[in-house]
């Protein structure tokens, strides 16, 4: 007997019964062009006070980057990955979050943390080298800066999911670079977020490079935002140097998440004007011309242009911004030039809630060594005296 005959009347030549397109992909697709506000007619509707505040934030942010870079030259930071040129993204990320929301920064995003109110010295602890992280994530609601790329994205999903299960009004904003989107963890995080409809926003700063590797060696996608459709979430494309545009796009994604409509993937097109870190030689992989072109699209210049057009950028305003920036820099200089106070015994303190017998032994060993060193130093000084 044929299979056909065996099933008789139940035969379905029609589309497989269980398959239904799960949603219309149309609305998930990003716009063809990055969304812009500044330099377009929409700029006129941006509130003047907001614009001035953003101006101050950006100027402070730039100064922060410069000061941190200077600290590497003075041996006060082990390394610094600058966000010069990317300040609009960093500032916007900090501004869109409500008090109770969480930020999941990548290793580069200290500025976002500082703009959110974190003490710069705490934000820079990892990069200074006195500990791996310098703040309590629970009170700051800022996850530790994350070095292994994209690995904090599933954390953001899990946290947002947990908050939702508990009925709390919390959104998580997770930051990642263009290079980081190639990692498996990016994929797994976005998929979990969409399946769980977790209140999380994925914010990709596409700054053109992953260290030396340009975007075209990283992906062949129409845009990184187009990846959203494959997870069933909306993708948005925004001019990452246009702080008003980033604020708007991020803000509406956060609202969407907050109101229970699930995650969004946002790609901000920006550019890293500095080298990858102070240790990097960017001339090996890009031309001065390219950098110069991008300097023409500086996020600060875009705001200044609008302020100027509206007659809001007088000397006083400029002065105020510059003073705020210098105050921050002076504080950083002063406090980062003080030697970090460190206790080597702390190495054993936080490995477990209770040290293992082996760690207790090792702790005793180090204590003895330190004591011996101190004793012999004291003895040497005694001899000299």
């Amino acid at each position, binding site marked *: 007997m044929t299979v056909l005959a065996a099933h008789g009347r139940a035969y379905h030549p029609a589309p497989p019964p269980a398959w239904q397109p799960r949603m219309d992909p149309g609305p998930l697709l990003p716009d063809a062009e990055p969304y812009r506000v500044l330099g377009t007619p929409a700029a006129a509707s941006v509130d003047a006070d907001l614009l001035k505040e953003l101006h101050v934030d950006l100027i402070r942010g730039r100064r922060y980057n410069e000061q941190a870079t200077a600290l590497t030259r003075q041996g006060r930071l082990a390394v610094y990955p600058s966000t010069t040129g990317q300040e609009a993204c960093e500032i916007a990320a900090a501004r869109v979050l409500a008090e109770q929301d969480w930020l999941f920064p990548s290793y580069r995003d200290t500025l976002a943390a500082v703009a959110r109110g974190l003490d710069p010295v705490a934000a820079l602890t990892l990069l200074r080298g006195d*500990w*791996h*992280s310098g703040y*309590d*994530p*629970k009170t700051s609601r800022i*996850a*530790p800066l994350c070095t*292994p790329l994209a*690995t904090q*994205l*599933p*954390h*953001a*999903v*899990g*946290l*947002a*999911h*947990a*908050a939702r*299960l*508990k009925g709390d009004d*919390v959104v*998580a904003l997770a930051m990642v670079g263009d290079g980081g989107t190639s990692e*498996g*963890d990016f*994929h*797994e*995080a976005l*998929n*979990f977020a969409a*399946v769980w409809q977790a209140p999380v926003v994925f914010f990709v700063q596409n700054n053109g490079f992953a260290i030396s590797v340009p975007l075209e060696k990283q992906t062949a996608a129409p845009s990184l935002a187009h990846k959203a459709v494959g997870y069933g979430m909306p993708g948005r494309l925004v001019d990452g140097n246009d702080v008003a545009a980033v604020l708007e796009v991020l803000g509406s994604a956060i609202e969407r998440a907050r109101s229970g409509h699930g995650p969004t993937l946002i790609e901000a097109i920006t550019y890293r004007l500095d080298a990858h870190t102070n240790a990097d030689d960017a001339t090996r992989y890009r031309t001065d011309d390219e950098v110069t072109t991008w300097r023409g699209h500086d996020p600060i210049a875009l705001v200044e242009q609008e302020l100027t057009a509206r007659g809001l950028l007088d000397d006083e305003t400029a002065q105020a911004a510059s003073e705020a920036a210098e105050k921050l820099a002076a504080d950083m200089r002063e406090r980062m030039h003080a030697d970090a106070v460190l206790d080597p015994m*702390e190495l054993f*303190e*936080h*490995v*477990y*809630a209770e040290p*293992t*017998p*082996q760690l207790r032994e090792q702790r005793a060993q180090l204590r003895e060594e330190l004591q011996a060193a101190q004793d012999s130093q004291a003895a040497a000084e005694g001899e000299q005296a």
Partner: protein
Amino acid sequence: MSTATVAKAGTAEKRKPATMAQALTSALRDAMAADPSVHVMGEDVGTLGGVFRITDGLAKEFGEDRCTDTPLAEAGILGAAVGMAMYGLRPVVEMQFDAFAYPAFEQLISHVSRMRNRTRGAMPLPITIRIPYGGGIGGVEHHSDSSEAYYIATPGLHVFTPATVADAYGMLRAAIASDDPVVFLEPKRLYWSKADWSAASPETVPPPGKAAIRRQGTSATLVTYGPSVPVCLQAAEAAKEEGWDLEVVDLRSLVPFDEETVAASVRRTGRAVVVHEAPGFGGPGGEIAARITERCFHHLEAPVLRVAGFDIPYPPPMLEEHHLPGVDRVLDAVARLQWESGYVAGPAGGSD
């Protein structure tokens, strides 16, 4: 004969024996009932109850938000669990088989083991990672790895592995209650081992970090854990014929490692063999043997020997019997513990 099947002498009431699998299920259920922040998650843990049925019934009882079928992505599972723990939950993650925990390795090493330390104690991660491990069940490739060497070499992780039904319950409860991450290694081939044990009144077991002397003896100490505990107990029974009275120490937790109990036993007996299924080279046995030697050198009548899996990828089902450390191999090692004068060398290197 495994201890697990020995009914405790003097138990008045007549009870049905329970399996290790049942005890694990009870532990999860009781932990979930006791603490609403305990969440079970993994592949097939919900509707199906897990491929080994350890999570059977939990989704029904506690809802899918408490016992969740995740997408098929181990790094995503463990990474999401990290975030959940950061928000105050106590995730219990199931990795379906030993080798399928490897995709989550970066999350485990770079985050799970380090978050407490990274944040100076501000952000401990109370995550339990259940991994069915080891061979002896006829599993095809990737289903029988003994991967404990990777976990014990990672500071910040606890590594527990029960060998008895009572420990399965008690140690899983302890793992879930721990404020630190625990890699909880479940010996697959003991899932169906039985003991007189009651879910209604589970007996108290020593805390992890304490080794248990499963059999007292005077001639030599067998140091072992997990799936090799019953093997060593059997070997100890068989050794009686040869006139050896073997002590069997079940480590229970590899991290923390109970050096005191092990060293005290070896000082008493003067001889030791470490037994495990994981490949010998670079396996836990080296650490254990080296540590015993450091502490007990002048009490040792012979070098501490090791009986372990061969240094090969886990064999296909039809050949696994030749790989697994069995009673005969344990007895051979015991025989090489220099009972007579003069050193009897082991098999010579490269002599074949």
